[in-house]
């Protein structure tokens, strides 16, 4: 972990690492959340009974309706904002990316001769190539074995 990036060291500290100030705040928040959870658990049974919406007084229900309308408006505004911002953001990101450069780099990485070789089909796979080379070596070995140095470089025609 010694050569891990700084963010990783901060977010994923080792067990024996020294605590930081933020850990104190996190501890306080954790304790409070636990308490609040207990309170919620204690109060929850009331939700179905005396605290159910049909038992609310008229003015509370009016307030709740107002709040719900406001919530829907806020959600719609947020959604509109999201739909407006996203294309702008994506367009901006795409503008900043050097797509032609990336494509050129990828094409440079692709082994074009190998693809030609495989797509012509009749030039064979790695294993067949291996067998052929071994047999060529065997041919030469047998030629040497039978009568010393033969004319192994004879070309494919008569002069």
């Amino acid at each position: 972990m010694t050569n891990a990036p700084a963010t990783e060291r901060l977010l994923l500290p080792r067990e024996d690492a020294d605590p930081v100030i933020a850990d104190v705040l996190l501890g306080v928040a954790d304790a409070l959340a636990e308490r609040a959870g207990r309170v919620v658990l204690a109060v929850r049974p009331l939700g179905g009974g005396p605290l159910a919406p049909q038992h609310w007084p008229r003015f509370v229900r009016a307030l709740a309706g107002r709040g719900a309308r406001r919530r829907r408006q806020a959600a719609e505004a947020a959604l509109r904002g999201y739909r407006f911002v996203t294309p702008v953001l994506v367009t901006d990101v795409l503008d900043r990316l050097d797509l032609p450069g990336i494509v050129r780099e990828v094409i440079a990485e692709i082994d074009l001769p190998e693809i030609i070789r495989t797509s012509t089909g009749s030039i064979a796979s790695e294993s067949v190539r291996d067998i052929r080379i071994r047999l060529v070596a065997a041919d030469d070995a047998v030629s040497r074995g039978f009568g010393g140095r033969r004319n192994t470089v004879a070309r494919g025609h008569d002069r």
Partner: protein
Amino acid sequence: MTGEREAHEQSWLSGLPEEARAFQGRRAGVVSRVVAAIVDALVVVLLLGMLYLAFAALGFLIDPAGFAFPAPDREGLVLTWFVLAVIYLSVCWAGTARTVGDQLLGLRVLGARGFRLRWGGACVRALACVLFPWGLLWILAGRERRSLQDVVLRTVVIYDWGPRLPRTSPAIREAQSAGERKAHGDKEEGEDS
């Protein structure tokens, strides 16, 4: 030398692997050719099996009620195998200058000038190879890696990993790359047709 560079580019474009360029066009040795011959023999056995199944299917279509698998005698089978082998070898050599075995091992069968065999030559060579396969062993005895059939019929078998049959003969290509454009180059050009 531009000729060399052109040759290199051509081999690059044909997808010829680096390791094959060293022996491309050289005469093939006995091991490769024996293995190719064995592969071809097996291919002919496969063809024979397919022919048998075709005959059985034909028999079934003609008389489904009284159908029984045909039971050919051994002599008939061997004779059919020989005939099939001659047809197969002639068609392959006159067509693409290589059989399935040659294709597998990257070999090509060419005439003395380096061109593909004609139908007559291919048939005679096929007959000679099927009737006297031991002629292959002559490669060990001769000086130029030629089987007995090659010596008699003036043919050669070369290493050729290229997928396609070249348009010109190796002799012409060599002469061109060496810059030796003499009168005999034109004479060989006429052999192509």
